[in-house]
């Protein structure tokens, strides 16, 4: 068969699937966002930006993404490097570290709620250590900093594993000879990491960053279980407009905003971490 046709045949089924089940609803959503009472308008967007929670939701969402994603990448890189230097038990450690992959975000939110709630495990420890005299609330409207920190911690716990798995797969693809060559030339472990491992990991890091950023922009269940309505984010606002207010137009406007931001972030990553064709 003509080698030019093969790749197109291979992507054809998924393209057909996406066309029917993704593009049609996508176009419908965008149309919904730009329509009010059956006529084309930007009314939904005006209503969205005029909402009290809108600014908070935007700020909170970006805060989370900007704090969580770099921390996750650093943590996952450190973990992957540790795994590489582990002599025995590498599989069991990798298995333990990837357990959170199997935990849904709502369940992870509830796990951390049990720890951080007023009468939770954290306060028990702090009281026993004598740091606190009684239960202290961390997740209320009056403590926005600790509320944010709690959500960051929960998200780090739950979703670092996916970055780890991608990075570990990438590390395994790097031929050992490169590192050995660096050793021969007298590179320190740190130089080896920054000059050999990191550049060769770029495609994996790109995939991980895109996925994590886009998913962090859509954080919802963790935020809802820990912060409730005290911590509005873009997707929780979309959910409220859709189900509580039953205003599908404004919900669609939020969806369009999230999509736009995600797309922009993806394009930035694709450009910033591109691998020149000659190096592929």
């Amino acid at each position, binding site marked *: 068969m003509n080698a030019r046709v093969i790749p197109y045949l291979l992507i054809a089924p998924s393209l057909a699937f*996406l066309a029917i089940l993704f593009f049609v609803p996508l176009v419908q959503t965008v149309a919904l966002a730009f329509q009010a009472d059956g006529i084309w308008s930007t009314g939904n967007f005006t209503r969205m930006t005029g909402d009290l929670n809108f600014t908070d939701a935007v700020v909170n969402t970006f805060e989370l993404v900007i704090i969580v994603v770099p921390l996750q990448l650093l943590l996952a890189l450190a973990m992957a490097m540790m795994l590489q230097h582990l002599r025995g038990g590498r599989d069991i450690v990798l298995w333990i570290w990837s357990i959170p992959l199997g935990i849904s975000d709502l369940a992870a939110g509830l796990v951390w709620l049990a720890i951080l709630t007023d009468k939770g495990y954290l306060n028990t420890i702090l009281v026993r250590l004598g740091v606190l005299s009684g239960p202290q609330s961390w997740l209320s409207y009056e403590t926005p900093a600790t509320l944010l920190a709690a959500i960051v911690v929960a998200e780090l716990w739950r979703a670092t594993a996916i970055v780890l798995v991608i990075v570990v797969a990438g590390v395994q693809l790097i031929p050992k000879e490169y590192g050995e060559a660096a050793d021969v030339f007298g590179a320190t472990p740190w130089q080896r990491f920054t000059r050999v491992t990191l550049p060769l990991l770029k495609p994996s890091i790109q995939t991980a960053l895109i996925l994590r950023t886009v998913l962090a922009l859509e954080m919802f269940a963790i935020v809802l279980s820990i912060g409730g309505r005290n911590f509005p984010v873009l997707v929780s606002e*979309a959910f409220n407009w859709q189900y509580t207010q039953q205003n599908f137009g404004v919900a669609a406007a939020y969806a369009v905003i999230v999509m736009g931001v995600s797309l922009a972030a993806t394009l930035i990553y694709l450009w910033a971490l591109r691998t020149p064709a000659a190096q592929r």
Partner: protein
Amino acid sequence: MTLRRAVFITGIIVLSVWTLLPIYLIALGAVGGRTVVNSWPKPFLPPADLSFATMREFLDIAGVWTSALYSVEAAVLCMAFSILLGVPAGYALARFVFAGATAYRLVVLLTRAFQSQSSRCHSLSASSGSGFTTLRSASA
């Protein structure tokens, strides 16, 4: 053991405890029942009268098994479809240079940019799942 090695092993242990401890604590709640969940200060050891009564109560609630079955069904179907659609596409991206590859990649990523919560089309989760498989097989 060198100091370096000791720090290294400590790091591994700290990260493993960080992963496992929250699961242990939530499991305590599951076996301890209402008394543990509402107690203060919270116990860090399983209760002496460890029982699976709470778990059994939970499993006796009507619909738990049905919804578990639905979850498994949905998971199996999603997995099958995302492998069927994603693996060939990922192979194409990884093994062939063709015009439109970047555009196709973007289209796949686009499925991720569309949150399933506010979409009224439930099949979307399958499409974003296959997107992920495509990306994974392309980068592997």
